[in-house]
Every structure is written in C-alpha cells, then in structure tokens.
C-alpha cells in the first residue's frame, strides 16, 4: 500500500460518491489526499482499528444520561501511551477522511453508503461520533486548542505518543488558532504536529480575495513553531519533517510559571508542515469551476456526463 495508490483511491471514491449524490467536497479530496495518506501510512504510529467496519448508527449526544455516546477515534486505533493520536480539525473534509479509512481497510467498502443518511454517524460535516473523528470541530479553529490540551496531558503523564492535527488553511483566519500557537510555544509543547492543507481556497473563493493569511510560514515561525513548507502532493517531502523528529529524545521539561526557558529548544516547539496543494490535482476537469471549488454540485447534464466519463476511465488514468 503506497501513499500514491491510497491517494488515487481517495479521489476515485470521492468522485464516485459526488456523482452518485450530485454533490460533494471533491476539491478537498484533490488537495488533501496525499497529506492524509502520508499521515496514516508514513508519519503516525497508530494501532489497528478497534471500531467496526460497518459504521455504528448514531448513539445519541453525549450526556450524563447517555453512557452509549461514542467517538469515532477507535478507527485510528487504540489509546496507548506510546501510540500517536490523530485530531481532525476541518471536518468539512469528512468525506475525504472516510474515503481514506476505506482505502486503509479501517472502514468497510460500503461505509459511504451511509454518508449523510438519517441516523448515521457518517455525517456530512463530521462530529466526534463520526468515523476517524475524536473531537467536535465543525466550528472551525477549535480543534488545535483541544489537541494542545491532549498533548499537554500526555506530557504530564509522561507518555511518548504524539498528537497530530490535520488543519485547513482557512482555519488560520480564526483568532483562536493564533491563541493556540502562542500557548503551544509558551508551554513548550513539542509532542504535537500540525499538517496544513494549504490549498488557498475557501467557501467564498480564493483565500487571497477573501482574507489573506500569508505569509503563513513567517507568521507561524514568529509564533514559535518549527515550520516546513512542502509540496503537498509529494509523499517524501510530506513525511520528511516528521521523520526527522522521530528519533529525537524529548528532553525533560519543567514547565512552570516561574521557570520558563525564554528560547525553547527546537524539540520543545510544535511542528508545522504547510502542505502547498492544488485543489484540482488528479481531476483537471475541476479547473473549469475555479475559483468556486468549495462544494461541487453539477450545473448541467453535460457536466455530469463529463465527470461520469472521467470515473469510467479512472483505471486507465491511475495506471
């Protein structure tokens, strides 16, 4: 199983699904396929899924009176001190994550049939009960702070496992994201890494027109993160910054109000990989829709036919 084959599988499944439902978050699959595949295949240390191949039905919202409430974290393996954790922030990408989990065999091949159906956990915009999800992040820009709390707790307990967060670039418009980076640096949280799908697109169109976040790398460095900017479709480039950290021993920290090191060592900083991506990668037909790429719904039978044709010839393209 390679990053390339899994990424191609993600695109094919999301395209297939978009055709079947006359709508879908297709451009997100195009931009994020290699990032998510690299995280799961090359970067994160995860155990096998502990959740059923057929997604469970919705078991009710969490509450004191509902012990049946569940999260979708089991699809990313068990919780263990030495294993990593995956926190999925831009949950509008849920379809892409489900497609990935199917490609990896963590979800059954028919799981997408339950997508966006009543009573299912395979929701359109994922929440913590959705496969592969651990927190409820649909109000964007909130997951990083929660991941920071998880990483801090793991450090307090002396666990060696790390916390990986997948984010979208649009979330860097939210002030909370910057509050979180300030806190990660201040508290020297180095057991957390962030992969950003920098596809430069958001709901209203090109980010440069809506509200620019650039220069993102410089901004993040100024906030104290270790930042790498890579081609987001190149598995080697994506994995390299994480692998470079893997064997480094995290030194003992005494992270208290009175004893903080003003210049934390590199390992005590959050790791950020800005993955520069193309929202039409692998499906050139999408370029005709630019710059409105956030959600694809076919405008005419002709357009739909063109995408049907693309799917029919997918095997030829992939090989």
């Amino acid at each position: 199983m390679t990053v390339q084959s899994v990424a191609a599988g993600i695109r094919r499944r999301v395209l297939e699904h978009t055709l079947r439902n006359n709508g879908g978050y297709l451009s997100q699959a195009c931009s994020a396929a290699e990032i998510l595949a690299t995280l799961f295949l090359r970067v994160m240390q995860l155990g096998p899924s502990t959740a059923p191949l057929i997604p469970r039905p919705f078991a009710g919202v969490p509450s004191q009176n509902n012990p049946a409430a569940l999260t979708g974290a089991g699809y990313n393996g068990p919780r263990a001190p030495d294993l990593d954790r995956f926190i999925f922030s831009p949950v509008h990408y849920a379809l892409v994550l489900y497609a990935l989990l199917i490609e990896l065999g963590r979800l059954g091949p028919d799981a997408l049939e339950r997508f966006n159906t009543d009573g299912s956990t395979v929701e359109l915009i994922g929440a913590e009960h959705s496969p592969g999800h651990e927190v409820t992040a649909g109000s964007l820009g909130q997951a990083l702070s929660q991941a920071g709390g998880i990483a801090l707790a793991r450090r307090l307990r002396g666990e060696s496992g790390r916390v990986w967060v997948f984010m979208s670039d649009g979330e860097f418009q939210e002030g909370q994201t910057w509050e979180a980076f300030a806190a990660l640096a201040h508290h020297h949280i180095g057991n957390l890494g962030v992969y950003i799908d920098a596809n430069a697109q958001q709901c209203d169109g090109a980010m440069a027109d809506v509200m620019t976040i650039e220069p993102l790398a410089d901004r993040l460095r100024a906030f104290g993160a270790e930042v790498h900017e890579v081609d987001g479709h190149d598995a080697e480039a994506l994995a390299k910054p994480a692998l470079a950290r893997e064997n480094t021993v995290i030194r003992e920290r005494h992270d208290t109000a009175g004893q903080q090191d003003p210049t934390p060592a590199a390992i005590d900083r959050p790791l950020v990989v800005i993955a520069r991506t193309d929202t039409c990668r692998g499906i050139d037909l999408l370029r005709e829709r630019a710059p409105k790429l956030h959600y694809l719904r076919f405008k005419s039978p002709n357009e739909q036919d063109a995408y049907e044709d693309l799917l029919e010839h997918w095997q030829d393209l992939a090989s």
Partner: protein
Amino acid sequence: MIELVTRPHRSNLLRWAAKRSEVLVLGADLTASCEADGFRDQFPERFFSFGMAEQNMLGFAAGLAREGFFPYIHTFSVFITRRPFDQLAMSIAYPNLPVRLIGFLPGLTTPGGVTHQAIDDIALMRALPNMTVLEAGDATEVESMLDAAQAIEGPVYVRQLRGEVPRLFPSEQPLRFGRARLLGSGTDLAVISAGICTEEALSAVAALRSRGVATSHLHVSTLKPFDDPRLLEQIANARYGAITIENHSIIGGLGSALAEQLAEQGIGRRLIRLGLRDTYAHGASKPYLMREYGLDARALVHAAETLIDASLGIDDAVLAEHAAAVRGAAQRETLAKADKTEDL
C-alpha cells in the same frame, strides 16, 4: 451578628486541591483577582497560565479533561460565558467534559462597569445542554463549591464570590446540590433569593414579618438543574404570591426558571421578578447599583406591598435596623472599602 470571611475561596482551593493531583488550575491573567494565586505559588506544576486568550484556554481545558484531568478555569464570569461562548458550547458542553468554570464578579459585584458585570451568564449557561449552574450566596457556599462541582460528571459553571464574604449559613451546613435552603416558612408570601441578594432578602423578610406578613424564604444555589419541589410547594402555599430577587437580568435567570416551573405545574400565583430589568448597568459601588436597579431590601419590600396591595410602613430606617441585625456597621465599612479597592 454574622462573620466576615476574607478570601474564603483562596484558602479553600489550596486546602481542597492539595492532595488531588488530577486537579489543574487554568488562569487567564486574573489569577490573584480570582484568588488562585495561592494555588499557583504552591502547586506551580499544576497551574497553567493562558494569558488573555479565553477561547484557546477553554479548548486546552477540554483536551485536558478528555485525558482524565479536572481543569478548574479561574477568570471573570464575563470572560467565561460571553466572550468564548461557542468554544464553551462546542469544545466543553457538547462532549459533557468535566471542566469546572469558576466565574468571578457575578452581576453587580464589581465597580468595573458593563464590561465586567456578568448579568446574562446564568441565562447563557442554563441554555447550554449538559451544563450545571451553581451560585454562591455566602462564605459557606464559597467553601462548598469545589466539592459540589467535583461531584458532577459534566461541566459546571460556578458564580463565585471573592474578597470579604459574609457567612450567612453555618459552616457545618454546606451547599447541598439541587436543594434550596428553607430559611423560614409563611403562608402570605414566598421570597426566593440567590447569590448576594439573599443577604438583602434576609433583612427585608425580617421587616415584613415584623409587620405581620407571614413570609417564607428560600435561598437557591443550584440554578440548573432547577427541580427542588419545595420551591413550588412554598409558592403554592403563599396566598399573595412570590418574589424572586437575583443579581442578574430578570430574563433567563432564577425568576425565569421559576416562572417556567410555575406555568408548567399550573400553579396560579403572581410572581414579581426582581433583578436587572432588561438593562445593562454601569460602574459604581455594589450598594449604589443594587439600589439603582432595584436588587435591594427596599425593592423587595415594595414588591411585597404590590402583591399584598397595602402599605406596610417600612422605610429605610426600619430596614437599616433589620440589616444591622444581619451585619454590623463596622462590617459594612470594611466591605465598602474592599469594594472600592478590589483587584480588577
């Protein structure tokens, strides 16, 4: 005469948290102002400073709570309930995480003005599913809060008091979750008070009784869930009706909660809700504001006269006499000074 306790939360937090290694305190640049400085200095490895960035602090608290820790947020109520409301709802309340939100400066307890006065916090917190809402009315309840909050599975919002706090209830009678305190019974009127308004209600009720008005008085410290049957029993037995008095807007707080229950149970009694009447307030001393906005003993007596439809001849001098029975002149002076020099 009652006892005044200096910074009861500060010492209680230190004592209570000492042996609970899973308890963490999170601060947002108001650590001493929220009496968490003693904890910070004694247990620096369990105190985390987040600066003026409450949205992120609530997210970190959520993550820590998911991992089995018990984060105790300490900041002003407005900066817990108003500014980061979405984070509170989505990161903490939805997953029912055991984050304890210790909010200071409820209502008019600060001269800091509109930005610092939490007048809508109970309404906002009551509207959040999974949230429990508690309010301290005296030093004994301030000291009860940590035990009460820790016993609850999900998130808890506490309206906490700081500084010089009167002890109205014996220290061996701590707050009991979900139970109002029955301070007296009567079949003419029912007075339901919460928070700092209970001290005002004590002198007003004494004055009413001195005029022959049989008044029952209940003090509420659990605002959600709100299901103590004794509240409705006392009101059903009060021939002229009931008065609520609260340090909050009359929309969404104690008075609203009670009105909902009365209507649902079909108890046809009049209800006068004292509190901020759909208005913001401004920066001034607590006694001044409580008089201006009708949250004091005098306002309560006027409400009683309205329900009874008779003048009781209770003027400020009479009320002052009854207030003196609750609290001495020297204590009033101490409190007035403390209010003016408080740490904002």
